[in-house]
């Protein structure tokens, strides 16, 4: 079997028709992964043996007539998801040797649906980054131009799907970590509503913002995979008790009469002009599909980045207190006393950006500063959330760019945290308000992909996937593959 460069939907059909076995398919992807790893560094751990064993079991299940629609389809997981018996690093030296004793609920759900795990994907350390340069395991490279960043923090997931070395990948999004790398790598990304997927076994960054999702070739693939990873979970009390629809049955619905809101604040002076043109081009496709377009304003949205850089660090400084060098994770050599054990284990185990956010969060939560920073930010968060609610009074979905510019060179923004943080200026709002968001490929600027962002009301994944799928039936941006990996 030669280079598989297909969608999950096509692979599922091929498996069902007996065109190839899961073992053959898995072997083909493992070969592609091995060939691309030196150029992309998309994987932290490749689980070849386990993958081939799972694939063989999938083939056996199929032979007995027990196959579901995803049985035998290979995927990979962001290394933030705990995988039983497999190293789970979260891109950090702190967890470089951590072998998870259990599966994340998302991982178990996709395993239960019959998918085959190929390995664990590289990411920014503890998901803190927008370029995948903060990983302890080295930067990930963008398959469209390996001198460029893939975006982050789910950079490994986005690069791997873009290069077609995995058919689809899980990812997580706290401030844009699915949508921004999906945009920069020319693939489809979906961050569901807060609480749609269980956070159990997904290593915590900022618990009121974190949400699991997917990076795929197409919206149809996202619809196929989202069901098995969604639903309420007794192990995550913030997962929402609400029925999970079959996201695939409504993909082809008409968009006639749908109202799309263009958020004025998304088309600000920071948006690259050619990037903007690609977004405008995409909107004309939606108009041809029968949607109405109107401009709306979310006046507090420009405050989303400063709000996020109070709330997210505050939550991470609490969450990452568990890394104490005692029960798991890195421990320093010959500690003098308990305090020395904590401070040196953490100082050695965490990278520069993680330490920056831990200190930012510690400060905003400390005595005398809590009201001025943390409570203030939570109040502004309420305003931003209310702006979205207001916009959804007159619109079904909101559209805009995913990121201000296409991919930038590795190293270009690494030493300037504020410039780096502003990469997420268009994505953070959805996290603050708990809304679902997507990014879909909508063209290129100088050979680099551009992403169109779709934000919907809470639990509107059905409508978002429907809109994205109809667009992808009219365009082929999502099917473009970087020449070096074709």
């Amino acid at each position, binding site marked *: 079997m030669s280079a598989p460069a297909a969608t999950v939907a096509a692979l599922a059909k091929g498996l069902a028709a007996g065109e190839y076995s899961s073992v053959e398919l898995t072997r083909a992807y493992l070969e592609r992964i091995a060939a691309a790893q030196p150029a992309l560094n998309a994987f932290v751990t490749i689980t070849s043996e386990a993958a081939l064993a799972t694939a063989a079991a999938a083939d056996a299940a199929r032979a007995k007539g027990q196959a579901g629609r995803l049985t035998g389809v290979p995927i990979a997981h962001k290394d933030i998801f705990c995988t039983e018996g497999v190293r789970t690093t979260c891109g950090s030296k702190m967890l470089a*040797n951590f*072998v998870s*004793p259990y599966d994340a609920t998302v991982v178990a759900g996709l395993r239960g649906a019959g998918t085959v795990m190929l390995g664990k994907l590289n990411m920014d350390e503890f998901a803190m980054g927008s370029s995948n340069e903060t990983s302890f395991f080295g930067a990930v490279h963008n398959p469209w131009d390996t001198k460029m960043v893939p975006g982050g923090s789910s950079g490994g997931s986005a690069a791997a799907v873009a290069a077609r070395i995995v058919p689809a990948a899980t990812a997580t999004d706290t401030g844009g970590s699915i949508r921004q790398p999906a945009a920069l790598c020319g693939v489809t990304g979906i961050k569901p509503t807060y609480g749609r997927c269980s956070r159990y076994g997904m290593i915590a960054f900022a618990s*009121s913002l974190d949400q699991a999702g997917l990076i795929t070739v197409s919206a149809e693939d996202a619809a196929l995979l989202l069901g098995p990873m969604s639903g309420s979970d*007794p192990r995550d*009390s*913030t997962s*929402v*008790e609400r029925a999970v629809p079959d996201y695939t049955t409504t993909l082809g619905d008409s968009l006639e009469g749908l109202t799309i809101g263009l958020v004025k604040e998304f088309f600000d002076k920071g948006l690259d002009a050619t990037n903007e043109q690609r977004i405008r081009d995409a909107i004309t496709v939606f108009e041809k599909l029968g949607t109405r377009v109107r401009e709306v304003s979310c006046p*507090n949205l420009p405050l989303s*980045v*400063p*709000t996020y850089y*109070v709330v997210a660090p505050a939550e991470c*400084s609490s969450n990452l207190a568990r890394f*104490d*060098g*005692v*029960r*798991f*994770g*890195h421990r320093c050599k010959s*500690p*003098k*006393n*308990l*305090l*020395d054990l904590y*401070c*040196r284990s*953490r*100082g*050695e185990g965490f990278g*520069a950006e993680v*330490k*920056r956010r*831990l*200190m*930012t*969060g*510690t*400060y905003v939560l*400390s005595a005398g500063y809590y009201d001025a*920073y943390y*409570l*203030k*930010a*939570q*109040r*502004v968060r*309420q*305003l931003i*959330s209310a702006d979205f609610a207001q916009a959804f009074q007159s619109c079904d979905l909101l559209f805009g760019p995913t990121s201000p510019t296409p991919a930038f060179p590795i190293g270009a923004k690494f030493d300037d*945290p*504020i410039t780096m*943080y502003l990469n997420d200026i268009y994505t953070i709002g959805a*996290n*603050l308000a*708990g809304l679902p968001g997507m990014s879909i490929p909508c063209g290129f600027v100088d050979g680099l992909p551009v992403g169109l962002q779709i934000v919907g009301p*809470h639990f509107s994944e059905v409508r978002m996937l429907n809109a994205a799928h109809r667009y992808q039936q009219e365009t082929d941006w999502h099917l473009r593959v970087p020449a070096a990996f074709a």
Partner: protein
Amino acid sequence: MSLSRADIENIARLARLELTEAEIPVYVDSLSKIFAFVGELDRAPTSGIAPMAHPLPGLAQRLRADEVSEPNRRDTYQQNAPQVEAGLYLVPKVIE
């Protein structure tokens, strides 16, 4: 807003992070910039606005019965521990 070296040393102590001599000036500079940047929030009119604690308004936190639901997997969990002995996690002596 400008933070001093002493501020950074204090924050690092609260965060239980040992910083190297080379790291301190880097964080003096970048945290000062971050707090200047988040100072923009002061401009937002928030009087009478309740702080938002949960991204899904109106949802109550679920509770469950206080019953044992997980098996004891101590031996498995301790395989990831840096130092254990007889089922106990070892740390430097705390009480003389």
